């Protein structure tokens, strides 16, 4: 766990130097559907996550909620 926290903290520290204060009128690209999860269709990403969950032994990191199943 220490290793994970260290990597996240270090990357945040180094990236803080690259951060700009983006104004509301500069967010046109950021608000595009293709910039959202699944390119705007999160349900398709959820299908992929379900396949991975069923065929692999790990889970976590893709958001909270969604429920369990007896598929693993």
């Amino acid at each position: 766990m220490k290793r994970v926290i260290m990597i996240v903290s270090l990357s945040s520290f180094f990236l803080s130097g690259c951060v700009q204060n983006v104004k509301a009128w500069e967010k046109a690209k950021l608000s595009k559907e293709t910039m959202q999860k699944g390119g705007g269709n999160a349900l398709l990403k959820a299908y992929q996550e379900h396949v991975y969950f069923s065929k692999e032994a790990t889970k976590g990191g893709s958001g909270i909620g969604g429920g369990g199943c007896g598929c693993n």
Partner: protein
Amino acid sequence: MQLVKLSITTALLLSTLQADNYINVQVLQYNEHNGRASISTPSVELNYDLGADYTFNGKYTLDSISGASPIFYDSTSGASAYSRGETTQDSARYGGVEYDETKRMQGTVRGTKRFENRDEVTLGASFSNEYDYRSTELSAEVLHWVDEGKNQAFSMGVAFQRNVILVDCKENSICDATSGASKKLRADAFFAEAGFSQNLNSSSVLKTSLFFNNEDGYLTNPFMNVLRYYNTTPTITNETRPHNRRGYGGVLEYTKAIGESTAWHSSYRYYHDDWEIDSHTLNNDLYYELNSDTTLGAGLRYYSQSAAHFFSKEFDHFTDEVYASSDERLGDFNAINLSMSIDYKITKQLMYNLSGNYYKQNEGTIARYFTTGVKYKF
């Protein structure tokens, strides 16, 4: 210039506040090679904004699963998950055993409340039911904007899951093997995730998150077998996994708009748990707006995991170990997933999508799966 900025800001704010109401109907068709497993999954999702401050989201999914799982079985008593007991070296096999077709229904509802500063609280409930597995989940998430410009957001979520597993006692060491009865066993899970999102500039976003999972109870798969005492008295028994599992990890996600029409999503995930499974996942997705109606997508995911400390599918490995499993999903393997997709706007409100995926594990599993559906905005 100020006037132009003001009108663009107003337009963006209006688009943000505009209702995001839609119905999304999708079907997944999943097929493994050699007919090993076939899954059909239709889903319907409704997203409805109640004014600017509340959003309701509901999803209903049906699964129909048929096929076979690779397990140890006794070839003289038939290729059944329950062909357990003493066997011989000649009769012991590892291979695909057919299971009955199962159906599963799953529903999720989520409600989001937004406050004046646009911070969000989301509460959710999920329910999943199949004849031998029932899962109930409650979840809560918060999103807090750290700065006034809404370029930094902190998010946190927790979920509690209760799973009830119906175990057939036939030839199963955890309950009375002779009565033919069944027994309900419980497995509870707690999930937590915390993330921080930062707009780096007008075209890129970075998100980091940490997650933690804790599972307690009957984590064994009642259909999976192991072969013990191969060199003396070969015996097929049901597998046994530890009753607790703690996993944690971190995710780094980078999303970048390239030019006016391309978006690149890249992420890395590290996972570790006390079953000694380590895993690394690298994912990349590209979306390209061919014109105002058509968006093309392509994705590549690489995954690797190490084996659980109690896993082996060797014939002469297990003797009297407390924990033993030959479920190949707990083994050491890597996998790739390739995906292609197309989204086409039929009208301003109606969108059609089609995607194809190819999934391959180096240990042999190959799957192809397709999704198709329509999304109607209103």
